[in-house]
């Protein structure tokens, strides 16, 4: 069904890029894995949250006395009475952008915002208690769209933010005006990009347990235990070290689980008040209306090219619907502007991004982090420009594409780039398809993505990633990382890097993650950072441990100093004479004795330095999607696809395939299924009947051509995979529609009605032309 091809493969490794089963696999396929959703502690209470029915209102009075009378209700908390009222946000470095009280004190800003939390002995009683809480509101005028929210007379959502402009971002290089002058052809378009729900299978949930010694333990489904620890310390006025976050198994994240949510905050506040464990699990509806979403955007983009297809200049202006709070939206605003230039060389480029507050649920990061929107607009416009100029769209892209050594002024230098070969593969595939049936067409789209962010808006004093490798006397290895496993396979990837480096087998390595008490701080799983950053830290830690072991081996071996030792497959040996060696375990035992009984401990850490503004490395990809369209109803069906992909050196073979296929399914959903309609600030499809997630019957083959490059900054040459591939698909579907019918759809997700409308307009235009 799926074809997997490798272009220019590297030298084989012992562990890296071999078929390794996910190390969490047995737990997951047997039902043994305990998610936060499954946690039950002695004496545990259940919490429920009363939410705002209004998009914008002042909280005047909260009366929960009747709720407290219900047998089984143990306590109630409100923002005013039970919290410090700390305004928090993940952009900790910038006070202005810390704008969210999880339980607001005075004012609610979107429908579904938490207002009161209740704990009771059963979930049912807690839910019932919500009906007995009276909240008096003064309803304020509300605004839902960014273009309305920036108007002079729009309601003010946050004090001091004129015209509701929350964040602005500007990127510019070269002389834009001059570069446009050089262009023979300039095209401008306005686009609209929808939101998207993360829709993790495990909804937001937390179990908090505060004990009289002043310590707080929280089981929480998240992407970054360290962030949770630090943010919770901030809002609760506690020390980070007194808070322990445990996130062993996490049922999906996709960018939606590394900010504070109502579940963790309210359960903690309730637990502190009641001194008992409190569990809060969001319903699916709560998970839709009261978490965050992919940022909807309005995109204006103007592009100038020469007759021969050489790109000259591009200018983009973007308004994003930020919703009620900042969250990670500020980063998405920057990254969308940066990736809107990808993966092409522009003589001059200018981007102005404006994140606008509205009275809708907050927008934030989601897999692709602003880039899917950027590519939706960029890759379609480029396709249209090629058509306008009568140029081959693949060749025009190829001509302008990044290459090794490309400098993006002031932003980045590209150290590895395999996109040229991606073009070859896609071209071959399209050619091999031959003539398609009349209702089918193939669309393509290119993009690139980062391998972890360089920015430190979180203001962490720690290294971005850290790892500790401990070698036991029997040759087993403990790998402690702060990196977070959320299903993407990071524990396995890191175990592979550790085993390869140390020269042991992957089953020798036990990975400890998802617990802040026992693992070093790490920024966690977001922005495609773990393979490169945590991978580098693990590699360094394993090298450190290995060096210590080899020092003993050298001391014992009596070998000529010109010989080098190495360890492979648990065999410590001279590289030049591999048969001369000794069993790893024996060497380790002696080495431990030599350290007066101390286990071998290696440490590693990684923080990017001198790698530009955005990321230490960039992946590249080109995707072709074949679609079939019912011209009479507008229904789209995906038929086939090929992704040509450069992630440097693949580390975790199965994990890579899974990430690429999975990203494609989510990206396809963004392209044509996952619309989020609002009416007066209310999400109209907050359930899985009305919110359409791609299913097995909709998923086409996801063929992969892996173009292996070597990324000097990555561990063993590795870089990002799995997030970036969320970027091209929507545009590829749009481009297929353009190929098929010559229609230009400027709004995503693409709906059947839009296609019919565009076809009708096209026919009318043609008739007028006659």
């Amino acid at each position, binding site marked *: *069904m799926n074809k997997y091809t490798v272009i220019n493969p590297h030298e084989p490794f012992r562990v890296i890029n071999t078929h390794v089963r996910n190390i969490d696999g047995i737990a997951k*396929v047997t039902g043994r894995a305990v998610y936060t*959703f499954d946690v039950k502690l002695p004496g545990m209470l259940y919490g429920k949250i009363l939410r705002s029915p209004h998009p914008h209102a002042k909280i005047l009075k909260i009366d929960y006395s009747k709720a407290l009378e219900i047998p089984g209700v143990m306590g109630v908390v409100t923002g005013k009475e039970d919290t410090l009222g700390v305004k928090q946000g993940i952009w900790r470095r910038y006070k202005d952008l810390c704008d969210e009280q999880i339980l607001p004190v005075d004012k609610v800003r979107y429908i579904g915002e938490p207002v009161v939390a209740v704990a009771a002995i059963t979930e049912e009683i807690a839910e019932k208690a919500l009906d007995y809480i009276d909240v008096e509101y003064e309803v304020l005028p509300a605004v839902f769209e960014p273009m309305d929210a920036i108007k002079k007379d729009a309601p003010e959502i946050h004090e001091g933010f004129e015209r509701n402009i929350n964040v602005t971002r500007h990127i510019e290089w070269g002389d834009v005006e001059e570069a446009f002058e050089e262009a023979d052809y300039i095209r401008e378009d306005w686009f609209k990009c929808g939101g998207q729900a993360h829709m993790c*299978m495990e909804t937001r949930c937390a179990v908090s347990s505060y004990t009289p010694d002043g310590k707080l333990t929280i089981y929480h489904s998240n992407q970054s235990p360290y962030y949770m620890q630090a943010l919770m310390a901030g809002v609760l006025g506690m020390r980070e070290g007194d808070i322990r976050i445990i996130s062993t198994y996490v049922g999906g994240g996709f960018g939606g689980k590394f900010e504070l949510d109502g579940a963790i905050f309210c359960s903690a506040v309730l637990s502190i008040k009641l001194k008992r464990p409190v569990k809060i699990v969001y319903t699916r509806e709560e998970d839709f209306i009261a978490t965050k979403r992919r940022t909807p955007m309005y995109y204006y983009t103007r592009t100038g090219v020469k007759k021969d297809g050489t790109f000259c200049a591009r200018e983009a202006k973007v308004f994003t619907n930020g919703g009620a709070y900042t969250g990670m939206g500020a980063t998405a605003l920057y990254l969308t502007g940066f990736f809107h230039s990808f993966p092409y060389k522009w003589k001059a480029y200018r981007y102005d991004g404006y994140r606008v507050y509205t009275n809708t649920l907050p927008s934030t990061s989601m897999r692709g982090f602003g880039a899917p929107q950027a590519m939706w607009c960029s890759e379609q416009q480029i396709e249209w420009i090629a058509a306008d100029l009568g140029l081959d769209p693949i060749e025009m892209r190829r001509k302008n594409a990044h290459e090794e050594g490309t400098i993006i002024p002031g932003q980045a230098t590209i150290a590895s780039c395999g996109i040229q070969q991606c073009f070859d593969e896609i071209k071959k595939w399209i050619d091999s398809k031959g003539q398609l049936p009349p209702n089918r067409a193939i669309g393509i789209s290119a993009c690139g993505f980062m391998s972890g962010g360089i920015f430190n808006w979180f203001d962490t004093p720690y290294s971005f990633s850290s790892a500790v490798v401990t070698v036991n006397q029997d040759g087993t290895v403990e790998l402690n990382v702060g990196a977070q496993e959320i*299903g993407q396979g990071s524990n396995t990837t890191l175990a592979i890097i550790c085993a390869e480096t140390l020269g042991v087998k992957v089953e020798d390595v036990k990975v400890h993650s998802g617990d802040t008490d026992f693992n070093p701080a790490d920024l966690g799983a977001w922005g495609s950072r773990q393979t490169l950053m945590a991978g580098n830290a693990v590699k360094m830690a394993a090298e450190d441990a290995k060096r210590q072991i080899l020092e003993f081996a050298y001391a014992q071996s009596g070998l000529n100093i010109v010989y080098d030792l190495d360890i492979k497959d648990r065999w410590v040996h001279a590289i030049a004479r591999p048969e001369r060696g000794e069993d790893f375990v024996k060497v380790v035992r002696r080495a431990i004795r030599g350290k007066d009984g101390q286990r071998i401990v290696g440490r590693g850490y990684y923080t990017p330095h001198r790698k530009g503004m955005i990321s230490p490395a960039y992946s590249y990809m080109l995707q072709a999607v074949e679609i079939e369209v019912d011209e009479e109803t507008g229904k789209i069906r995906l038929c086939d696809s090929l992704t040509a992909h450069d992630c440097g050196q693949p580390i975790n073979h199965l994990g890579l*395939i899974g990430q690429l296929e999975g990203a*494609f399914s989510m990206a396809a959903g963004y392209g044509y299924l996952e619309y989020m309609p609002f009416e007066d600030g209310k999400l109209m499809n907050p359930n899985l009947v009305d919110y359409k997630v791609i299913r097995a019957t909709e998923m086409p083959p996801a063929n992969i051509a892996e173009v292996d490059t070597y990324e000097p900054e990555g561990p063993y040459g590795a870089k990002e995979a799995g997030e970036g591939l969320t970027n091209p698909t929507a545009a590829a579907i749009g481009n297929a529609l353009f190929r098929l019918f010559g229609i230009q759809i400027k709004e995503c997700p693409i709906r059947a009605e839009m296609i019919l409308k565009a076809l009708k307009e096209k026919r009318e235009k043609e008739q007028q032309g006659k």
Partner: protein
Amino acid sequence: MEKKVVVLNVNGIDYELYINPKTLLVEAIRDYIGLTGTKRGCDTVSCGACTVLINGMSIKSCSVLAVQAEGYKITTIEGLEKNGKLAPIQEAFLDQGAYQCGFCAPGMIMSSQALLNENPNPTEWEIREGIEGNICRCTGYNSIVRAVQAVASGKYTEVKS
């Protein structure tokens, strides 16, 4: 409302429960019997995370009252392995990486097993139809299809129980 004594046979064991009749089968399995392998991901019978087998056929345990399941043989994800040996479909999921976060995996595996129970040699499309009641947000499903195909091809021979 009158509580009921209900005997549920789960994975070959009779559990006697004293429950409110509105208790859903998934609640009985998770909260009363304590088998938390079976998950819940929605409230609208949409996601399939709670799929279990009833007399070998798949159902969503959030859409059935526990009292209605009396008298049936219920199999949950915990009931697939025999004496510590995984079922072929579990082995195949491991080999194909047919799960990522793993939250949908128990339900997905039960749906796959039910499909194979009644159709040991499904076509690719039959596999897709067989698992379309289950949402997986991570994998994009193709690896799951490959896993079912691998079992159907006889790659894993089942242990006789």
